[in-house]
């Protein structure tokens, strides 16, 4: 039954790809879907793309593994969209740039900054696809009995089929649907499971006392997680690229505000399921990332449990497919612009690279935890591209040299933290979760270097473009 659920989700995704193909018209459509998409559709599409393996399986798994400390994870993810709404959505849309490197060249007039941003975007995309494919491996092995690589291979094939045929228009329509599919796939089992677990059948262990569990744990980890996850959202290429599809700056803000709600609803359900898993599955005797899929069988013993497992597996595959295709679109767009002059052929070559490299990495690294890997990606984005974006939008004194040194510092500090915490047995908390110091460090380096160098001559004109509402623009000079 679970194989059938996977097949249904994959077929639906491909069908939507073929259907969307007829709506694609020009190269412009191919990239940004012609900017004719409403805020709610757009927000659904972003949420559909954003809610990845880490959200669908990882949040429940981490709460199960860590206990209440894991509750900070979804809070950080949600807060990220508030940060996007406040600092990025409207100016980014008003910049009129297609991709992150486009924005950098507009703001800094520097090929070095653009190239570095391209590298960071590609790295972020690659690192982010790995946990998706890993999730497909875990779920396939656990729920169907097939070898894990079949699931990962399926994700790769479906994503390439959709992305290569339709481009972003397809993906926008498909992604918006994916959000609602994922929400339903989590909500329906949640209603059954939480009602049953909270009722009399599953015993007292789950009812009142569960809600009275107090959150313990290291406040440093909590602060580091929330900071990295909320700031990191600013540096996620597959999320940012969707803000260009809003008709104007304020619509981009409305999209971001809608996202706080859409993503929040999803996480509230995930948190309830995670807390139920703590009680229902007992001490962590199994792999945390499959906790969600084990839950129906642990709580409901009859056939209902099997159906719910199938629904959850379908939802998980929706998550793998949507996040991967979103990442592949943005990474291949960037590769195409950097190396192939933005041609559609370059986009296709880029797509192969965008999914091929992570597939190799997934095969090589077999003990990746989903939520842990995604926290790392967010910390990397939050320490490299995000500070440059935030200061570039709001500070007139930032320079290209400042941006370059900030990105290098961020990449070095997160890289160092990862290596040190990987090799040492008892790594300090702040090396395992470096966000609390690596993000402020990047900001500090950018500010210090910028103050000793000259900002680009175009600063005032660019900031005017970013911050003046469309209706105040007047006649633009040719």
């Amino acid at each position, binding site marked *: 039954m679970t194989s059938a659920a996977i097949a249904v989700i994959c077929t639906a995704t491909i069908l939507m790809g073929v259907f969307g193909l007829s709506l694609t018209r020009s190269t412009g459509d191919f990239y940004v879907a012609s900017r004719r998409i409403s805020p709610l559709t757009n927000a659904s599409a972003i949420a559909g793309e954003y809610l990845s393996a880490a959200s669908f399986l990882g949040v429940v798994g981490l709460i199960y593994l860590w206990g*209440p400390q894991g*509750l900070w994870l979804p*809070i950080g993810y*949600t807060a990220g969209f*508030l940060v996007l709404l406040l600092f990025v959505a409207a100016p980014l849309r008003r910049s009129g740039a297609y991709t992150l490197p486009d924005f950098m060249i507009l703001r800094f007039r520097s090929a070095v900054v653009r190239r570095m941003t391209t590298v960071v975007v590609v790295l972020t995309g690659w690192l982010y696809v790995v946990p998706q494919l890993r999730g497909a491996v875990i779920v396939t092995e656990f729920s169907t009995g097939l070898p894990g690589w079949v699931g990962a291979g399926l994700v790769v094939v479906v994503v390439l089929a959709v992305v290569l045929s339709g481009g972003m228009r397809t993906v926008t329509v498909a992604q918006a649907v994916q959000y609602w599919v994922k929400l339903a796939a989590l909500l329906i089992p949640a209603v059954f499971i939480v009602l049953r677990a909270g009722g009399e059948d599953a015993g007292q262990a789950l009812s009142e006392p569960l809600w009275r569990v*107090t959150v313990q744990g290291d406040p440093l980890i909590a602060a580091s997680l929330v900071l990295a996850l909320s700031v990191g959202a600013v540096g996620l290429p597959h999320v940012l690229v969707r803000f260009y599809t809003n008709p104007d700056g*304020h619509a981009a803000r409305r999209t971001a505000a809608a996202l706080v709600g859409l993503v929040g609803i999803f996480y509230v359900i995930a*948190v309830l399921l995670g807390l139920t898993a703590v009680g229902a599955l007992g001490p962590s005797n199994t792999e945390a990332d499959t906790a969600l899929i084990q839950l129906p069988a642990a709580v409901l013993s009859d056939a209902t449990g099997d159906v719910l497992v199938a629904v959850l597996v379908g939802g998980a595959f929706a998550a793998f497919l949507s996040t991967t295709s979103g990442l592949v679109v943005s990474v291949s767009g960037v590769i195409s612009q950097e190396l192939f002059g933005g041609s559609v052929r370059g986009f296709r070559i880029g797509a192969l690279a965008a999914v091929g490299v992570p597939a190799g990495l997934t095969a090589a690294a077999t003990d990746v935890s989903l939520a842990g890997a995604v926290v790392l990606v967010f910390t990397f984005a939050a320490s490299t591209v995000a500070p440059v974006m935030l200061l570039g939008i709001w500070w007139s004194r930032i320079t290209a040299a400042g941006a370059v040194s900030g990105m290098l510092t961020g990449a070095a500090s997160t890289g160092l933290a990862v290596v040190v915490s990987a090799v040492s047995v008892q790594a300090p908390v702040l090396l395992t979760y470096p966000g609390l110091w690596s993000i402020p460090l990047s900001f500090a380096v950018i500010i210090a270097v910028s103050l000793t160098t000259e900002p680009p001559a175009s600063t005032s004109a660019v900031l005017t473009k970013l911050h*003046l509402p469309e209706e105040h623009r007047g006649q633009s000079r040719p």
Partner: protein
Amino acid sequence: MTARPASDEGEDDVAPAVRDRRVSVRGPQTPPTLDEVLGDPRRGFVAERARAEQARSLRRRQLRLNIVTVGLLAVLLVGMGVGARYEGILLTLVVYPLMVLLALWALRRARGIETL
């Protein structure tokens, strides 16, 4: 016939001086826009500078609002972190609707700043 070359030479003497005087007269540094050619001269550098000034003031006011909002978010999260240590896990779920309210408030304020 013999006077012709002499008068030509005379003109050659005068022309550089005329050209020098003409060079010293400088026109606009950038070509005028269609609007400037056809009519309203205020649609030029002056308007451009006014727009830059307006954008600058908008940027500052939005930034101030954003910092206040982030401050509120920080207070909310720290409060929740402390509260959840004593009051239990359910408190963490209250954060989500509060974040939505914060987003809606910021959305309205941001639009308000722009439409003034």
